[in-house]
Protein backbone atom coordinates (compact mmCIF):
# COMPACT_ATOMS: atom_id res chain seq x y z
CA UNK A 1 0.00 0.00 0.00
CA UNK A 2 2.92 2.36 0.65
CA UNK A 3 3.79 4.17 -2.55
CA UNK A 4 7.40 4.55 -3.44
CA UNK A 5 8.55 7.86 -1.86
CA UNK A 6 10.50 8.76 -4.99
CA UNK A 7 7.41 8.23 -7.12
CA UNK A 8 5.35 10.33 -4.71
CA UNK A 9 7.87 13.17 -4.86
CA UNK A 10 8.02 12.95 -8.64
CA UNK A 11 4.23 13.07 -8.88
CA UNK A 12 4.09 16.05 -6.54
CA UNK A 13 6.86 17.78 -8.51
CA UNK A 14 5.08 17.22 -11.82
CA UNK A 15 1.81 18.45 -10.33
CA UNK A 16 3.51 21.60 -9.01
CA UNK A 17 5.17 22.25 -12.35
CA UNK A 18 1.88 21.81 -14.20
CA UNK A 19 0.10 24.09 -11.73
CA UNK A 20 2.77 26.77 -12.20
CA UNK A 21 2.67 26.41 -15.98
CA UNK A 22 -1.13 26.55 -16.20
CA UNK A 23 -1.99 29.17 -13.60
CA UNK A 24 1.16 31.21 -14.23
CA UNK A 25 0.01 32.00 -17.77
CA UNK A 26 -3.43 33.40 -17.00
CA UNK A 27 -4.66 36.97 -17.23
CA UNK A 28 -8.01 38.63 -16.74
CA UNK A 29 -9.48 42.07 -17.20
CA UNK A 30 -11.66 43.80 -14.63
CA UNK A 31 -13.75 46.79 -15.61
CA UNK A 32 -14.23 49.24 -12.77
CA UNK A 33 -17.16 51.03 -14.32
CA UNK A 34 -20.69 49.80 -14.92
CA UNK A 35 -21.58 48.88 -18.45
CA UNK A 36 -23.11 51.76 -20.38
CA UNK A 37 -25.49 49.33 -22.02
CA UNK A 38 -27.25 48.75 -18.71
CA UNK A 39 -29.45 51.84 -18.94
CA UNK A 40 -29.68 52.21 -22.70
CA UNK A 41 -32.52 54.55 -23.58
CA UNK A 42 -35.16 53.77 -26.18
CA UNK A 43 -34.08 54.46 -29.77
CA UNK A 44 -35.10 57.83 -31.22
CA UNK A 45 -36.11 58.48 -34.78
CA UNK A 46 -34.80 61.15 -37.14
CA UNK A 47 -35.86 61.85 -40.72
CA UNK A 48 -33.10 61.54 -43.31
CA UNK A 49 -33.55 65.14 -44.49
CA UNK A 50 -33.22 66.28 -40.88
CA UNK A 51 -29.74 64.82 -40.55
CA UNK A 52 -26.73 67.13 -40.67
CA UNK A 53 -23.05 66.28 -41.14
CA UNK A 54 -20.59 66.22 -38.26
CA UNK A 55 -17.06 67.52 -38.70
CA UNK A 56 -14.44 66.39 -36.19
CA UNK A 57 -12.43 69.56 -35.68
CA UNK A 58 -9.73 68.23 -33.40
CA UNK A 59 -8.81 65.53 -30.95
CA UNK A 60 -6.47 66.37 -28.09
CA UNK A 61 -4.91 63.44 -26.31
CA UNK A 62 -3.18 63.51 -22.94
CA UNK A 63 -1.61 60.65 -21.06
CA UNK A 64 -1.11 61.02 -17.33
CA UNK A 65 -1.46 64.75 -17.94
CA UNK A 66 1.15 64.99 -20.68
CA UNK A 67 0.06 65.93 -24.22
CA UNK A 68 0.42 63.18 -26.82
CA UNK A 69 0.03 62.89 -30.56
CA UNK A 70 -3.41 61.66 -31.53
CA UNK A 71 -3.33 58.64 -33.72
CA UNK A 72 -5.32 58.19 -36.93
CA UNK A 73 -6.66 54.95 -35.44
CA UNK A 74 -8.15 56.81 -32.48
CA UNK A 75 -9.74 59.36 -34.79
CA UNK A 76 -11.18 56.64 -36.99
CA UNK A 77 -12.55 54.79 -34.00
CA UNK A 78 -14.27 57.90 -32.63
CA UNK A 79 -15.77 58.72 -36.02
CA UNK A 80 -17.04 55.15 -36.34
CA UNK A 81 -18.57 55.30 -32.90
CA UNK A 82 -20.36 58.57 -33.72
CA UNK A 83 -21.47 57.16 -37.07
CA UNK A 84 -23.03 54.19 -35.29
CA UNK A 85 -25.52 56.52 -33.59
CA UNK A 86 -27.14 57.22 -36.97
CA UNK A 87 -27.80 60.82 -35.97
CA UNK A 88 -25.57 62.53 -38.53
CA UNK A 89 -25.77 62.36 -42.34
CA UNK A 90 -22.03 61.81 -42.62
CA UNK A 91 -18.93 62.30 -40.55
CA UNK A 92 -15.61 63.70 -41.58
CA UNK A 93 -12.40 64.93 -40.11
CA UNK A 94 -11.56 68.61 -40.53
CA UNK A 95 -8.26 67.57 -42.06
CA UNK A 96 -9.97 65.52 -44.74
CA UNK A 97 -11.64 68.55 -46.31
CA UNK A 98 -13.81 71.53 -45.47
CA UNK A 99 -17.60 71.05 -45.52
CA UNK A 100 -19.58 72.85 -48.22
CA UNK A 101 -20.19 76.45 -47.20
CA UNK A 102 -23.74 77.37 -46.30
CA UNK A 103 -24.49 73.88 -45.06
CA UNK A 104 -25.65 73.16 -41.54
CA UNK A 105 -22.90 71.24 -39.77
CA UNK A 106 -22.09 70.16 -36.26
CA UNK A 107 -18.47 70.59 -35.24
CA UNK A 108 -16.87 68.33 -32.66
CA UNK A 109 -13.88 68.83 -30.37
CA UNK A 110 -12.72 65.96 -28.23
CA UNK A 111 -10.33 65.70 -25.30
CA UNK A 112 -9.11 62.15 -24.69
CA UNK A 113 -7.40 61.95 -21.31
CA UNK A 114 -5.76 58.64 -20.47
CA UNK A 115 -4.39 57.62 -17.07
CA UNK A 116 -2.04 54.66 -16.93
CA UNK A 117 -0.65 53.02 -13.83
CA UNK A 118 1.56 50.00 -14.46
CA UNK A 119 2.33 49.67 -10.71
CA UNK A 120 6.05 49.78 -11.41
CA UNK A 121 7.09 49.72 -7.73
CA UNK A 122 5.08 46.70 -6.69
CA UNK A 123 5.95 44.95 -9.97
CA UNK A 124 9.66 45.42 -9.24
CA UNK A 125 9.26 44.07 -5.69
CA UNK A 126 7.20 41.13 -6.87
CA UNK A 127 9.73 40.55 -9.63
CA UNK A 128 12.52 40.21 -7.11
CA UNK A 129 10.45 37.74 -5.07
CA UNK A 130 9.47 35.82 -8.21
CA UNK A 131 13.06 35.60 -9.37
CA UNK A 132 14.30 34.55 -5.94
CA UNK A 133 11.71 31.76 -5.91
CA UNK A 134 12.90 30.60 -9.35
CA UNK A 135 9.42 31.65 -10.60
CA UNK A 136 7.71 28.98 -8.50
CA UNK A 137 5.60 31.69 -6.84
CA UNK A 138 4.36 33.01 -10.20
CA UNK A 139 0.77 31.68 -9.72
CA UNK A 140 0.52 33.35 -6.32
CA UNK A 141 1.79 36.83 -7.20
CA UNK A 142 -0.38 38.40 -9.89
CA UNK A 143 0.77 41.67 -11.44
CA UNK A 144 -1.49 44.58 -12.25
CA UNK A 145 -1.90 47.23 -14.93
CA UNK A 146 -4.55 49.94 -14.59
CA UNK A 147 -5.96 52.09 -17.32
CA UNK A 148 -8.56 54.85 -17.12
CA UNK A 149 -9.99 57.06 -19.82
CA UNK A 150 -11.87 60.34 -19.61
CA UNK A 151 -13.52 61.61 -22.77
CA UNK A 152 -14.74 65.15 -22.98
CA UNK A 153 -16.65 66.10 -26.13
CA UNK A 154 -17.92 69.51 -27.23
CA UNK A 155 -20.46 69.51 -30.05
CA UNK A 156 -21.07 72.92 -31.58
CA UNK A 157 -24.24 73.36 -33.59
CA UNK A 158 -24.23 75.52 -36.76
CA UNK A 159 -25.74 78.43 -34.83
CA UNK A 160 -22.94 78.44 -32.26
CA UNK A 161 -24.74 76.56 -29.46
CA UNK A 162 -22.43 74.12 -27.72
CA UNK A 163 -23.28 70.98 -25.82
CA UNK A 164 -20.75 69.32 -23.60
CA UNK A 165 -20.54 65.59 -22.96
CA UNK A 166 -18.26 63.60 -20.69
CA UNK A 167 -17.69 59.97 -19.97
CA UNK A 168 -15.26 58.07 -17.81
CA UNK A 169 -14.25 54.48 -17.57
CA UNK A 170 -11.51 52.48 -15.92
CA UNK A 171 -10.27 48.96 -15.83
CA UNK A 172 -7.41 46.79 -14.71
CA UNK A 173 -5.59 43.88 -16.24
CA UNK A 174 -4.39 41.37 -13.68
CA UNK A 175 -1.97 38.83 -14.95
CA UNK A 176 0.59 36.28 -13.99
CA UNK A 177 4.04 36.92 -15.36
CA UNK A 178 3.95 34.33 -18.11
CA UNK A 179 0.50 35.48 -19.22
CA UNK A 180 1.50 39.04 -20.10
CA UNK A 181 1.24 40.07 -23.72
CA UNK A 182 1.00 43.46 -25.44
CA UNK A 183 -2.37 42.24 -26.78
CA UNK A 184 -3.66 41.99 -23.21
CA UNK A 185 -2.95 45.69 -22.67
CA UNK A 186 -4.56 46.54 -26.01
CA UNK A 187 -7.63 44.54 -24.95
CA UNK A 188 -7.87 46.48 -21.69
CA UNK A 189 -7.54 49.84 -23.45
CA UNK A 190 -10.03 48.72 -26.07
CA UNK A 191 -12.65 47.74 -23.50
CA UNK A 192 -12.23 50.93 -21.47
CA UNK A 193 -12.34 53.18 -24.54
CA UNK A 194 -15.35 51.33 -25.92
CA UNK A 195 -17.24 51.81 -22.65
CA UNK A 196 -16.51 55.54 -22.80
CA UNK A 197 -17.57 55.83 -26.44
CA UNK A 198 -20.80 53.91 -25.85
CA UNK A 199 -21.63 56.21 -22.95
CA UNK A 200 -20.88 59.31 -25.05
CA UNK A 201 -23.02 57.99 -27.90
CA UNK A 202 -25.87 57.30 -25.46
CA UNK A 203 -25.71 60.89 -24.19
CA UNK A 204 -25.63 62.34 -27.71
CA UNK A 205 -28.53 60.15 -28.82
CA UNK A 206 -30.62 61.55 -25.98
CA UNK A 207 -30.15 65.03 -27.51
CA UNK A 208 -31.31 63.97 -30.97
CA UNK A 209 -33.76 66.86 -31.19
CA UNK A 210 -30.95 69.38 -30.64
CA UNK A 211 -29.12 68.25 -33.78
CA UNK A 212 -32.00 68.01 -36.25
CA UNK A 213 -31.72 70.40 -39.18
CA UNK A 214 -34.94 72.15 -38.28
CA UNK A 215 -33.88 72.75 -34.67
CA UNK A 216 -32.22 76.08 -35.48
CA UNK A 217 -31.88 78.32 -38.54
CA UNK A 218 -28.59 78.76 -40.31
CA UNK A 219 -27.04 82.10 -39.61
CA UNK A 220 -27.86 84.37 -42.55
CA UNK A 221 -24.39 85.65 -43.26
CA UNK A 222 -22.99 82.15 -43.18
CA UNK A 223 -19.81 83.66 -41.72
CA UNK A 224 -18.75 82.52 -38.30
CA UNK A 225 -15.98 83.80 -36.17
CA UNK A 226 -13.50 81.85 -34.14
CA UNK A 227 -11.27 83.07 -31.35
CA UNK A 228 -7.55 82.88 -32.04
CA UNK A 229 -5.25 82.45 -29.06
CA UNK A 230 -2.46 80.28 -27.77
CA UNK A 231 -3.06 77.73 -25.10
CA UNK A 232 -1.69 78.79 -21.74
CA UNK A 233 -0.84 75.32 -20.52
CA UNK A 234 -1.97 71.78 -21.01
CA UNK A 235 -3.03 71.39 -17.40
CA UNK A 236 -5.26 74.43 -17.40
CA UNK A 237 -6.71 73.37 -20.74
CA UNK A 238 -7.68 69.96 -19.43
CA UNK A 239 -9.08 71.47 -16.26
CA UNK A 240 -11.27 73.71 -18.37
CA UNK A 241 -13.35 70.74 -19.48
CA UNK A 242 -16.17 72.19 -17.50
CA UNK A 243 -19.88 72.06 -16.95
CA UNK A 244 -21.51 68.81 -17.91
CA UNK A 245 -24.87 69.25 -19.62
CA UNK A 246 -25.89 65.68 -19.12
CA UNK A 247 -24.92 63.79 -16.01
CA UNK A 248 -21.57 62.08 -16.56
CA UNK A 249 -21.04 58.50 -15.53
CA UNK A 250 -18.71 59.09 -12.64
CA UNK A 251 -16.70 56.06 -11.70
CA UNK A 252 -14.96 55.64 -8.41
CA UNK A 253 -11.69 53.85 -9.16
Amino acid at each position, binding site marked *: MNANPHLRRLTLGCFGLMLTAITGCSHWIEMKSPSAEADEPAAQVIARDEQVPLILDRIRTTRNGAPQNSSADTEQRILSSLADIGLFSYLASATSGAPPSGEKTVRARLLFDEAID*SHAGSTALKGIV*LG*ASMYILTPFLPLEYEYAAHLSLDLERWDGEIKHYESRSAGAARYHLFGAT*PIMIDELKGHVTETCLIDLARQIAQDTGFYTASSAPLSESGIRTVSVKSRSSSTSASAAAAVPVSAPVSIEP
Partner: protein
Amino acid sequence: MRRSPLAAPITFIAALLLAAVTCQGEEIVPRLSVGTQEIGLSAGYLLPHRLTTDHTTKQSGPAVMPSWAMVVTDPIASGHWYGGQLLLGAEIVYIQFEEPELTHGVGFTPKIKYLFEGTGRLRPYVEFAGGPFWTDLGGQIPEQSSQFNFILTAGGGLSWFFTSQMSFNVGYRFHHISNAGTQYPNLGLNSSLPYGGFSFYF
Protein backbone atom coordinates in the same frame (compact mmCIF):
# COMPACT_ATOMS: atom_id res chain seq x y z
CA MET B 1 51.14 32.13 -33.74
CA ARG B 2 48.12 31.34 -31.55
CA ARG B 3 44.84 32.88 -32.68
CA SER B 4 42.68 34.62 -30.10
CA PRO B 5 39.47 32.68 -29.33
CA LEU B 6 37.55 35.95 -29.57
CA ALA B 7 38.71 36.79 -33.08
CA ALA B 8 35.98 34.85 -34.90
CA PRO B 9 33.00 36.13 -32.86
CA ILE B 10 34.30 39.72 -32.97
CA THR B 11 34.70 39.57 -36.75
CA PHE B 12 31.20 38.09 -37.09
CA ILE B 13 29.62 40.77 -34.88
CA ALA B 14 31.50 43.56 -36.68
CA ALA B 15 30.28 42.27 -40.05
CA LEU B 16 26.67 42.10 -38.78
CA LEU B 17 26.88 45.62 -37.37
CA LEU B 18 28.31 46.98 -40.59
CA ALA B 19 25.49 45.33 -42.53
CA ALA B 20 22.92 46.72 -40.09
CA VAL B 21 24.30 50.27 -40.30
CA THR B 22 24.42 50.31 -44.08
CA CYS B 23 20.92 48.84 -44.41
CA GLN B 24 19.21 51.42 -42.18
CA GLY B 25 17.80 54.62 -43.55
CA GLU B 26 14.74 55.43 -41.47
CA GLU B 27 14.59 56.35 -37.80
CA ILE B 28 14.44 53.35 -35.47
CA VAL B 29 12.32 53.73 -32.35
CA PRO B 30 11.82 50.54 -30.36
CA ARG B 31 8.31 50.31 -28.88
CA LEU B 32 8.52 48.06 -25.86
CA SER B 33 5.24 47.71 -24.00
CA VAL B 34 4.14 45.56 -21.08
CA GLY B 35 4.22 41.94 -22.22
CA THR B 36 6.90 42.43 -24.88
CA GLN B 37 9.30 39.53 -24.67
CA GLU B 38 13.02 39.48 -25.27
CA ILE B 39 14.98 36.49 -26.46
CA GLY B 40 18.71 36.99 -26.39
CA LEU B 41 21.97 35.25 -26.97
CA SER B 42 25.22 36.59 -25.61
CA ALA B 43 28.76 35.31 -25.55
CA GLY B 44 31.86 36.53 -23.80
CA TYR B 45 35.10 35.53 -22.21
CA LEU B 46 35.54 34.99 -18.48
CA LEU B 47 38.59 36.63 -16.92
CA PRO B 48 39.72 35.81 -13.37
CA HIS B 49 39.97 38.10 -10.34
CA ARG B 50 42.02 36.85 -7.43
CA LEU B 51 40.77 39.13 -4.72
CA THR B 52 42.79 37.70 -1.82
CA THR B 53 46.14 35.97 -1.46
CA ASP B 54 44.26 32.71 -0.82
CA HIS B 55 42.87 32.82 -4.34
CA THR B 56 45.27 31.08 -6.69
CA THR B 57 43.11 29.73 -9.51
CA LYS B 58 43.08 31.68 -12.78
CA GLN B 59 39.80 30.37 -14.11
CA SER B 60 39.04 31.58 -17.61
CA GLY B 61 37.17 30.55 -20.69
CA PRO B 62 34.32 31.39 -23.04
CA ALA B 63 30.77 31.79 -21.77
CA VAL B 64 27.47 31.55 -23.62
CA MET B 65 24.21 32.93 -22.22
CA PRO B 66 20.85 32.35 -23.91
CA SER B 67 18.25 34.44 -22.15
CA TRP B 68 14.57 35.31 -21.96
CA ALA B 69 12.93 38.35 -20.37
CA MET B 70 9.63 40.15 -20.36
CA VAL B 71 8.87 43.87 -20.13
CA VAL B 72 6.68 44.35 -17.05
CA THR B 73 6.30 48.14 -16.87
CA ASP B 74 5.62 51.04 -19.15
CA PRO B 75 8.39 53.67 -19.16
CA ILE B 76 9.03 54.85 -15.60
CA ALA B 77 10.10 58.47 -14.96
CA SER B 78 9.94 59.17 -18.66
CA GLY B 79 11.97 62.19 -19.72
CA HIS B 80 14.49 61.90 -16.90
CA TRP B 81 17.95 60.43 -17.37
CA TYR B 82 16.98 57.49 -15.16
CA GLY B 83 13.72 56.83 -17.01
CA GLY B 84 13.31 53.31 -18.29
CA GLN B 85 11.52 50.00 -18.16
CA LEU B 86 11.77 46.96 -15.96
CA LEU B 87 12.22 43.46 -17.36
CA LEU B 88 11.98 40.14 -15.56
CA GLY B 89 13.46 37.01 -16.97
CA ALA B 90 15.92 34.20 -16.71
CA GLU B 91 18.96 32.90 -18.47
CA ILE B 92 21.10 29.85 -18.78
CA VAL B 93 24.79 30.44 -18.37
CA TYR B 94 27.27 27.99 -19.76
CA ILE B 95 30.98 28.44 -19.10
CA GLN B 96 33.72 26.35 -20.53
CA PHE B 97 36.66 26.73 -18.18
CA GLU B 98 39.82 26.45 -20.26
CA GLU B 99 42.01 27.21 -17.26
CA PRO B 100 43.16 25.75 -14.91
CA GLU B 101 41.66 22.60 -16.44
CA LEU B 102 39.22 22.00 -19.24
CA THR B 103 35.97 21.79 -17.27
CA HIS B 104 32.41 22.97 -17.69
CA GLY B 105 29.80 24.85 -15.76
CA VAL B 106 26.11 25.39 -16.34
CA GLY B 107 23.60 27.41 -14.35
CA PHE B 108 20.08 28.80 -14.40
CA THR B 109 19.64 32.35 -13.17
CA PRO B 110 16.44 34.37 -12.86
CA LYS B 111 17.30 37.98 -13.63
CA ILE B 112 15.96 41.47 -13.28
CA LYS B 113 16.95 44.11 -15.81
CA TYR B 114 16.35 47.85 -15.99
CA LEU B 115 16.49 49.19 -19.53
CA PHE B 116 17.03 52.95 -19.57
CA GLU B 117 15.22 55.02 -22.19
CA GLY B 118 18.55 56.37 -23.40
CA THR B 119 18.42 58.07 -26.75
CA GLY B 120 15.67 55.80 -28.03
CA ARG B 121 17.87 53.72 -30.25
CA LEU B 122 20.79 53.42 -27.87
CA ARG B 123 19.55 52.15 -24.52
CA PRO B 124 21.84 51.44 -21.55
CA TYR B 125 20.83 48.83 -19.01
CA VAL B 126 21.78 47.37 -15.66
CA GLU B 127 20.97 43.84 -14.60
CA PHE B 128 21.25 41.45 -11.72
CA ALA B 129 20.93 37.69 -11.79
CA GLY B 130 21.55 34.76 -9.50
CA GLY B 131 20.85 31.06 -9.32
CA PRO B 132 22.22 27.54 -9.01
CA PHE B 133 25.36 26.65 -10.92
CA TRP B 134 26.95 23.27 -11.40
CA THR B 135 30.56 22.87 -12.41
CA ASP B 136 33.01 20.00 -12.43
CA LEU B 137 35.72 22.53 -11.72
CA GLY B 138 34.57 22.33 -8.09
CA GLY B 139 36.62 19.86 -6.12
CA GLN B 140 39.62 20.30 -8.43
CA ILE B 141 40.71 23.71 -7.18
CA PRO B 142 41.62 24.93 -3.69
CA GLU B 143 38.90 27.60 -3.61
CA GLN B 144 35.82 25.46 -4.22
CA SER B 145 35.21 22.00 -2.83
CA SER B 146 31.77 21.26 -4.25
CA GLN B 147 30.39 20.86 -7.72
CA PHE B 148 27.04 22.37 -6.77
CA ASN B 149 27.38 26.15 -6.39
CA PHE B 150 25.52 29.36 -6.88
CA ILE B 151 26.35 32.10 -9.33
CA LEU B 152 25.65 35.78 -8.69
CA THR B 153 25.96 38.28 -11.51
CA ALA B 154 25.68 42.06 -11.66
CA GLY B 155 26.54 44.32 -14.52
CA GLY B 156 25.46 46.70 -17.20
CA GLY B 157 25.68 47.35 -20.86
CA LEU B 158 24.39 49.09 -23.93
CA SER B 159 21.68 47.95 -26.33
CA TRP B 160 21.79 49.41 -29.79
CA PHE B 161 18.58 48.82 -31.74
CA PHE B 162 19.39 48.31 -35.39
CA THR B 163 15.73 47.53 -36.09
CA SER B 164 12.71 48.29 -33.89
CA GLN B 165 12.76 44.66 -32.75
CA MET B 166 16.42 43.71 -32.71
CA SER B 167 19.33 45.03 -30.74
CA PHE B 168 23.00 44.44 -30.49
CA ASN B 169 24.24 44.39 -26.91
CA VAL B 170 27.62 44.85 -25.34
CA GLY B 171 28.17 44.72 -21.63
CA TYR B 172 30.19 43.82 -18.62
CA ARG B 173 29.34 41.50 -15.75
CA PHE B 174 30.96 40.65 -12.51
CA HIS B 175 30.53 36.97 -11.66
CA HIS B 176 30.79 35.39 -8.25
CA ILE B 177 30.62 31.63 -7.85
CA SER B 178 30.41 30.00 -4.43
CA ASN B 179 28.37 27.35 -2.63
CA ALA B 180 26.75 29.47 0.11
CA GLY B 181 28.72 27.66 2.80
CA THR B 182 27.24 24.24 2.11
CA GLN B 183 30.73 22.72 1.95
CA TYR B 184 34.24 23.94 2.78
CA PRO B 185 36.53 25.34 1.51
CA ASN B 186 34.32 27.96 -0.02
CA LEU B 187 36.47 30.93 -0.95
CA GLY B 188 34.52 31.64 -4.10
CA LEU B 189 35.58 32.38 -7.64
CA ASN B 190 35.34 35.93 -8.91
CA SER B 191 35.49 36.90 -12.54
CA SER B 192 34.86 39.63 -15.06
CA LEU B 193 32.83 38.82 -18.13
CA PRO B 194 32.85 41.27 -21.03
CA TYR B 195 30.35 40.08 -23.60
CA GLY B 196 28.41 40.88 -26.73
CA GLY B 197 25.21 39.52 -28.19
CA PHE B 198 21.85 40.08 -29.79
CA SER B 199 18.31 40.40 -28.56
CA PHE B 200 15.05 39.96 -30.40
CA TYR B 201 11.90 41.65 -29.03
CA PHE B 202 8.40 40.43 -29.91
